[in-house]
């Protein structure tokens, strides 16, 4: 088996290839992010194809979360550009990027503690997020059915009226993922969905992500190798801010650079 390295993206860069968006939904081009002289991110090119589930792995401090921050507009890259669905989004604000279609689940699940499970979901319904829309919003059956359908899938249907502060860690993870799905993003960034979950919870989360792959494009950041194996998808390895290898899990595992990065010299 040939060890995976980085594929040759050179001729597919959005600024050179007009048709890049036929193949890729997201393209990161020569991104660097420097904080106080420390280079947190130094990526050449990464392309994520339509309806792909891409897993990003890497040791601690490899820049995985920083990469998410750059994609979602939380951090501005020092140089380089982010392209999504046919346009450059490097300079757009966080809420604009969300409305264009990139949704994110944070490492620690962010839910609104004093709102009930249903109210949490409600705030993620697609559509206008303006003040007037919120003042005039009325509940309706189609919305309720969609919310309940998602909640049933993650076994939260019985807790719709429970305030989120009373949920277990796993339930909070699922609530965060469910609201993300409800908002119908074109790209889901899922940061460590299995962190702190029990084995059976992890399995359900894996099933959920694989189901999503049918209709969505996903980037999943993960530590848990068993979980990555379950997802059985293309893997990008980040290390010290660089993308080191890309390929199937088996392929990247045989890459000597990756082995060195994980095991140390």
């Amino acid at each position, binding site marked *: 088996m040939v060890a995976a390295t980085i594929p040759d993206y050179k001729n597919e860069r959005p600024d050179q290839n007009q048709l890049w968006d036929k193949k890729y939904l997201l393209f990161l081009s020569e991104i660097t992010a420097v904080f106080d002289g420390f280079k947190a991110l130094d990526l050449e090119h990464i392309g994520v194809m339509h309806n792909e589930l891409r897993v990003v792995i890497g040791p601690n401090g490899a820049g995985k979360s920083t990469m998410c921050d750059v994609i979602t507009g939380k951090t501005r890259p020092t140089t380089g550009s982010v392209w999504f669905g046919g346009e450059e989004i490097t300079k757009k604000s966080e809420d604009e990027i*969300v409305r264009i279609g990139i949704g994110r689940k944070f490492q620690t699940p962010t839910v609104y503690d004093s709102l009930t499970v249903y109210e949490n979901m409600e705030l993620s319904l697609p559509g206008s997020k303006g003040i007037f829309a919120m003042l005039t919003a009325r509940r309706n059956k189609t919305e309720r059915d969609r919310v309940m359908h998602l909640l049933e899938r993650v076994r939260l249907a019985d807790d719709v009226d429970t305030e989120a502060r009373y949920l277990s860690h796993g339930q909070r993870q699922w609530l965060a993922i469910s609201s993300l799905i409800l908002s119908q993003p074109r790209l889901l960034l899922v940061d460590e969905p299995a962190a702190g979950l029990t084995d059976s919870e992890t399995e359900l989360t894996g099933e959920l992500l694989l189901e999503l792959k049918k209709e969505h494009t996903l980037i999943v950041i993960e530590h848990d190798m068993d979980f990555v194996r379950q997802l059985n998808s293309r893997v990008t390895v980040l290390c010290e801010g660089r993308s080191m290898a890309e390929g199937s899990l088996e392929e990247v595992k045989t890459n000597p650079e990756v082995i060195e990065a994980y095991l140390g010299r």
Partner: protein
Amino acid sequence: MTERTMNEPAGIHLGSICGTSASQINKAFAGALLAFAILLPMLAHAGVVSVETVNMAGRYMALGIVALGLDLIWGYTGILSLCQALFFALGGYAMGIHLAHQGTLHNGIPESLYVVYPYKVGESKGMEVLPWFWLIFKPFNLTILLGILIPGLVAGLIGFAGFISRVKGVYFSILTQALTVAAMMFFSKNEMKLCGTNGITNFTTLAGHELSDPNVKIGLYVVTLICLIGTYLICLLLTKSRFGRVLLAVRDSETALRFAGYKPYAFKAAIFIFAGMLAGLAGMLYTPQANIITPSYMEARWSILMVVWVAVGGRGTLFGAVAGAMVINLLYNAMTSQWSIGSFDWKPDYWPLVLGMLFILVVLALPDGLAGLWRKMVGRIAEVD
């Protein structure tokens, strides 16, 4: 008292079987309070209570409207604003200037301004002219409009500037407190032609009615009561809408909200403006009943006192905010008058001590304030039944 943060008391089901549920007790209590508030002017008319008592209740109700606004911005949205006193004073000054126009005039300018009129170089007595910001408050309708719009506008400026640049937490509180103190300095200067530290006083008529007439005092009470009920209902609608849930979401996790596609700063600014307008309205209702407005209403202690009302009453519950404002002010009224039991003489000087202890007590023992205490009590009663 149908607050959304209410945890269903354990006994609610038992209680409802026996015929008294917590919500029924709440409704009965609210109804009784409302009935009392409506009956009060009639009692005054019959001579059972003094007009001064009604006047006092009217003033405290106006302060209850300020508390409603502060509760929306602090209790619901989690932003501790210390400039509600500024908005209150802006509304108060609008009404004060309007009332001064109708009072005693000297050389064509109201007495309060005349006594501190600052003469510029070359100006001599007899050359007094009313500045433009006095003239705009001459028409009654325009005054009402400006008394609400100006605080709203100032709140909009502070809100958008602060929230877009993501000034948060204690920094926002300090910013608002500093602006309030700056405004107080501004209003205190005689050169600003806002009557200096004396403030505006000696009002005689409002829209042709003698302010000293007991019936007019009762009328002002009724107007304040209607405004309080009206604003309470508007706030209730706001907090029950999806907009209200966005406010709670801002409090819980602003970042999550931003990544759900919302602009938190717009929601924060909107509710800050609304709270500012409520404070302005309250100031306009308060001034003719207190018969004075001075820059001292912008002192730091007033801003803090407003926070204490809401904290004691119960943050995040509209009823608690109003109740807190009323209870603290009634206590203030009782404890700043001189009385004695036996050989013990109560002195008004003790009041700050009582207030301080009350605040500490609430922080330590009643984090949900009086509203939280009430919920627990009602839960018990429903259980016993």
